[in-house]
């Protein structure tokens, strides 16, 4: 199968349309399983009581906020390198969803901070760098809307997002590099997990669910962007409408 043909918006558009329902169905199903496990199977935490259950949205949202930023920057870089329109459209489509997950990570973090630390917000390295990530997403989107010329908007926001990638490892390692109020990683690639198996499983299922959700909404947004950018994408139109247009001549 020749995958490179899908780098053309005309070929990618219908493919994305066929894929969206599958990603959406898997996302909803996994969210159902993850929420059930998180609320009914995972035990009460011996230190934090029931407040820890915020982890089942907080950690997946925070992971997605960082992951989507990196993916956005990669598409921006590919767009710059290959001068590929669809790559820039992908980067453009990822930003709002990434910003939403960053906002949710901060909000659910505040909801967790208040009962455990006694404060909605503290200026520690983890929280501050994640807030900066939100500003970066906002910057990428504002930069795009402030430039009328599409090619310049694509390139400027691509450069902005590529430079900003340095913040992602800062967020990730902030709990090791600085003495933060934010707890250290509960899941680590080197030392494994410090959580109960069912807690970890629920959290990972929610993460995969958010991942599928993101793919579905980002593909849907790319389709909107393709229609908005191309003046006459006839390939998306129903035959009856094209027939009507032809008859009107």
């Amino acid at each position, binding site marked *: 199968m020749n995958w490179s043909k899908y780098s053309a918006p005309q070929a990618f558009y219908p493919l994305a349309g066929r894929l969206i329902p599958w990603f959406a169905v898997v996302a909803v199903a996994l969210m159902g399983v993850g929420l059930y496990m998180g609320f009914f199977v995972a035990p009460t935490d011996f230190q934090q009581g029931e407040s820890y259950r915020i982890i089942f949205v907080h950690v997946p949202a925070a992971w997605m906020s960082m992951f989507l930023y990196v993916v956005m920057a990669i598409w921006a870089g590919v767009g710059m390198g290959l001068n590929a329109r669809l790559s820039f459209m992908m980067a453009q489509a990822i930003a709002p969803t990434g910003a939403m997950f960053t906002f949710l990570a901060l909000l659910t973090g505040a909801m967790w901070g208040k009962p455990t630390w006694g404060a909605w917000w503290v200026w520690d390295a983890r929280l501050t760098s994640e807030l900066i990530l939100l500003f970066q997403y906002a910057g990428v989107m504002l930069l795009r809307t402030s430039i009328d010329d599409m090619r310049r908007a694509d390139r400027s926001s691509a450069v902005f997002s590529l430079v900003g990638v340095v913040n992602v490892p800062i967020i990730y390692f902030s709990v090791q590099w600085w003495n933060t109020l934010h707890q250290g990683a509960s899941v680590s690639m080197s030392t494994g997990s410090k959580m109960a198996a069912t807690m970890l499983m629920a959290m990972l299922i929610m993460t995969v669910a958010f991942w599928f959700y993101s793919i579905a909404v980002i593909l849907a947004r790319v389709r909107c962007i393709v229609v908005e950018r191309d003046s006459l994408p*006839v390939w*998306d139109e129903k035959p009856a409408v094209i027939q009507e247009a032809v008859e009107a*001549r």
Partner: protein
Amino acid sequence: MQWGSASEFFAMGGYGLYVWTSFLATALCMLWEVLALWRRRVAARAEQRAALLGGMDETAT
């Protein structure tokens, strides 16, 4: 399962406000995003259709 009753479940050991705000906010954000995308698609396609029909009219005259 650790819940004796529905009210115990909603109380979340006294952390109900924090837990449910977190989950509700996440659900609302996702629903809002899906709805906004659906509306964006309807608007984009209406514009595309108008351009298609309008553009053809121009060439006809």
